[in-house]
């Protein structure tokens, strides 16, 4: 394929146009505005024909890498395939063309989706009520913490200003808690990767609002002491918050509510196969136990006399999105759940865990496995086993690009120096996974036989090794910054 890296502005050709507009009837009308508010120069837009625009963006699109191009083992992100039926259903005119201000009586079907989605998520998680207002996972975390705060404040328990997070937590957890006005207490992890329960006991007090936990945790390990942890937090008067990032590992096998969690968020764009990252808007529904139902953001959907209606919960934290969240994303997740059905949903967790363990066991002779244990849906290596070659995790990740793979998550979690975090998800077949294992072994071999080859990777991508220091210190964010367009 021909290499293509043009900017649309470079294609501009004086006089080329891609539109045909009728004569401007208003050109002789004067506008009574201060001259400082009027544009005097012409708008600096590229002058291009329709075909030029089409070719430009089609060529750029060929540079995309997504789960539809190849294997995407990005740990902690659950980059699973987004079945096309989701898009098909979301494109129904009845969903696509409704107005957010429509009267409830005109959108009963859409409200039914919210209502039934809440029931399905409740069944899967063991939590009693959900809001679909949050736009993404981190937004869900903020909403969950606002509920936690509201709960304590309305009981006049004003001392609770601290939220506990383990050292292995996703960065968003302490960030969300800080944005919500909490102070953060970090608890360390044990050598086996789990929360240090003894250390947790030492930080408990009547100032603790709650604890945020991901289970399985960021190392892909199940927190076996979860019952004890929940009990300790509850006895101290705090609430348990579940970060749903790793829910994929548990679907149909374990309920979050049964582990003692009171509040959780779900990333529909991870676990429930809606587009992720740049592929589309996200959705971060928040679920709560019944005693917190009245704190949910407004509005929630209820069913009264066979009609679906919007309601504002009595102690609601208020509105957290303009309307009702990203509705079509919920439609896609709803479609995913119905197309899998109750009988197949367990296979999601089953194969995601099996695939991760298969890769881990196949590669642990070449890569350092710091915690040799059965993992859940993902696991973490601490770089190559043979450290003498000087080849680091970054080099391995770059070399993977040469072989046509998306790189795994690297240098996270921070518990190890050379973390590589791999999450295959349930959607990959054995052939794809075997090919990946073969390539990872090949890279380990290259690191010993020809370390410079790996340190200089990638060699076959359109852009070679990026100067990350320059990218961080002098980012070029608009075309005029490149210099040659001044």
């Amino acid at each position, binding site marked *: 394929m021909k290499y293509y890296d043009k900017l649309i502005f470079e294609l501009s050709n004086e006089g080329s146009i891609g539109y045909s507009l009728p004569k401007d009837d208003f050109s002789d009308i004067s506008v009574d505005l201060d001259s400082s508010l009027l544009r005097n120069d012409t708008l600096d837009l590229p002058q291009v024909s329709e075909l030029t625009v089409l070719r430009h963006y089609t060529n750029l699109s060929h540079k995309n890498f997504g789960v539809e191009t190849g294997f995407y083992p990005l740990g902690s992100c659950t980059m699973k395939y987004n079945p096309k039926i989701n898009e098909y259903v979301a494109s129904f005119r009845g969903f696509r063309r409704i107005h957010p201000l429509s009267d409830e009586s005109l959108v009963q079907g859409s409200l039914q989706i919210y209502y039934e989605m809440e029931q399905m998520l409740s069944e899967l998680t063991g939590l009693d009520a959900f809001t679909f207002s949050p736009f993404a996972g981190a937004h869900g975390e903020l909403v969950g913490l606002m509920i936690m705060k509201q709960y304590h404040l309305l009981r006049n328990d004003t001392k609770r200003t601290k939220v506990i997070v383990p050292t292995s937590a996703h960065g968003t957890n302490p960030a969300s808690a800080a944005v919500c006005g909490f102070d953060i207490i970090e608890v360390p992890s044990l050598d086996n990767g789990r929360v240090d329960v003894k250390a947790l006991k030492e930080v408990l007090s009547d100032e603790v609002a709650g604890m945020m936990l991901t289970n399985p945790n960021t190392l892909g390990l199940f927190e076996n002491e979860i019952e004890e942890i929940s009990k300790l937090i509850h006895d101290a008067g705090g609430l348990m918050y579940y970060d749903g990032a790793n829910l994929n590992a548990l679907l149909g096998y374990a309920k979050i509510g049964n582990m003692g969690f009171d509040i959780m968020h779900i990333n529909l764009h991870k676990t429930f196969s809606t587009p992720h990252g740049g592929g589309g808007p996200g959705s971060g529904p928040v679920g709560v136990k019944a005693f917190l139902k009245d704190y949910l953001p407004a509005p929630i959907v209820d069913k009264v006399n066979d009609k679906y209606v919007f309601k504002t919960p009595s102690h609601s934290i208020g509105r957290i999105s303009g309307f009702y969240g990203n509705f079509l994303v919920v439609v896609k997740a709803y479609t995913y759940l119905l197309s899998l059905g109750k009988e197949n949903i367990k296979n999601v967790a089953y194969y995601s865990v099996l695939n991760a363990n298969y890769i881990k066991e196949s590669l642990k002779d070449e890569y350092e496995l710091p915690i040799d244990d059965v993992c859940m849906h993902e696991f973490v290596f601490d770089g190559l086993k043979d450290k003498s070659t000087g080849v680091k995790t970054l080099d391995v990740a770059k070399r993977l690009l040469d072989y046509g793979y998306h790189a795994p998550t690297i240098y996270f979690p921070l518990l190890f120096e050379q973390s590589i975090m791999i999450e295959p998800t349930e959607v990959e077949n054995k052939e794809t996974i075997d090919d990946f294992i073969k390539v990872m072994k090949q890279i380990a071999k290259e690191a010993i036989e020809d370390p410079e080859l790996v340190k200089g990777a990638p060699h076959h991508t359109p852009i070679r090794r990026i100067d*990350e220091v320059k990218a961080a210190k002098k980012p070029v964010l608009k075309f005029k910054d490149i210099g040659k367009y001044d």
Partner: protein
Amino acid sequence: MSKVVEGLYYAKTHEWLKVEGDVALIGITDYAQDSLGDVVFVDLPSVGDSFDKEDSFGAVESVKAASDLMMPVGGEVIEVNEELNDAPELLNEDPYANFIIKIKVNDLDELNDLLDAKAYEELTK
């Protein structure tokens, strides 16, 4: 193998301390800069700030991660290395020649809890 310099005090959190009288220079070790990778930003405290031992007095941000800087001993900041604002990479180039802050040490007895070069070398082996 990371470089360790004789005659300095070391913290387990990978800061070095060079003491002259009751004044000390604080920087990060070679091991720390190597683990962090290319440093792109150093978050410095202000002169006059006071910190207790093990307080975070700033942060180092690299292409890989942001990492807190910890006080090996308690003290008051009397000088910060302004050069690092424009050239944070100095911490990669020579971590021992480029200090981050200079402090007036509150209690010289706290130095007893720190490691010497040999013990630190052992820690990072």
